[in-house]
């Protein structure tokens, strides 16, 4: 009995009786119908057909509104899935992963809050009250002048520590602001019983009437720069030095400035630093 080459449908033979043809066509038609149905398994509007093997197909019913077609976990068949949507609803929202790694929304914090970690996730927190010192920079003193630029604007005050300052020749230690060399500063100083002071100077003198002696490293200064961003800056400094007679001297100095400070210049009045360290802290 003859069959079709691809699907093996039974065909009437040339020698079959004509009276057998209705029955033969019934067999042939049923086989063809079954094959076509297997190729088109859909039953409902929106159905998607897909192969389950090299020859067999199956029906995937339509998904729900908004779903998208994706490959299933085993990568064996397609499936309808609901896509992840952005959790953002409001200006300032952040997206972070939750405990399962799914995206969730973190609403913006209140003014002045900072983003912090609690070890598991992030949260907006109110920073601790002021008073803490925050290290901004550490700089070795060398050359004729050391300039600290691009000072942060996130603090209220600055504290500058100069330690082990060593200069090549007897000189005063000075502080300038914003590279300004105009006579815009007033300062006064005390050194072990002697006083000095001048208005309209291009810098604040940290050593008062005393010169730091050359070659000694025993020169340290603590400099507090108050309200450095407000335009009503004042500076107070205390230090212990070896003077130009190699005597240990205590120096106090203060000065005023009338503009905000964006950079500091540490100088030894035209001489050269042989060593020392400038450590700058921000204070809230």
């Amino acid at each position, binding site marked *: 009995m003859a069959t079709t080459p691809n699907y093996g449908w039974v065909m009437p033979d040339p020698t079959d009786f004509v009276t057998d043809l209705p029955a033969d066509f019934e067999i042939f038609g049923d086989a063809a119908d079954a094959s076509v149905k297997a190729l088109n398994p859909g039953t409902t509007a929106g159905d998607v057909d897909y192969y389950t093997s090299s020859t067999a197909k199956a029906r995937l019913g339509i998904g729900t509104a908004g779903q998208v077609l994706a490959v299933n976990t085993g990568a064996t068949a397609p499936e309808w899935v609901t896509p992840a949507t952005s959790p953002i609803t409001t200006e300032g929202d952040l997206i972070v992963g939750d405990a399962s790694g799914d995206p969730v929304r973190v609403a913006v914090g209140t003014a002045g809050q900072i983003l912090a970690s609690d070890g598991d996730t992030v949260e907006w927190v109110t920073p601790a009250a002021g008073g803490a010192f925050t290290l901004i*920079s550490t*700089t070795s003193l*060398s*050359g*004729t002048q050391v300039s600290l*630029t*691009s*000072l942060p604007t996130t603090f209220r005050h600055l504290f500058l520590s100069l330690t082990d300052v060593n200069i090549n020749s007897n000189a005063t230690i000075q502080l300038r602001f914003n590279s300004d060399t105009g006579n815009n500063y007033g300062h006064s100083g005390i050194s072990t019983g002697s006083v000095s002071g001048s208005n309209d100077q291009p810098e604040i003198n940290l050593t008062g009437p005393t010169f730091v002696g050359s070659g000694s490293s025993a020169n340290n200064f603590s400099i507090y720069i108050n309200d450095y961003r407000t335009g009503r800056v004042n500076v107070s400094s205390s230090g212990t030095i070896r003077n130009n007679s190699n005597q240990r001297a205590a120096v106090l100095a203060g000065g005023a400035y009338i503009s905000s400070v964006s950079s500091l210049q540490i100088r030894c009045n*035209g001489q050269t630093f042989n060593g020392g360290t400038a450590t*700058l802290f921000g204070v809230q």
Partner: protein
Amino acid sequence: MSIIVIHNVETGEIIEREMNAQELAQLEIDKARAEAEATEATAKEAARQALLDKLGITADEAKLLLG
């Protein structure tokens, strides 16, 4: 050779370079002023010592006198 050190505390970049003409000119002004101040301080000290010598007293005795 006069070196200037510029530390950008925001980026951490440190540049060491020779002073430019404008900075060198300012340095000369500063040096001249420093020398004048030193000369003035030396002259004051000399005058003070001369006065003490003239009075025949020491610096500590002068402090006691004024204190």
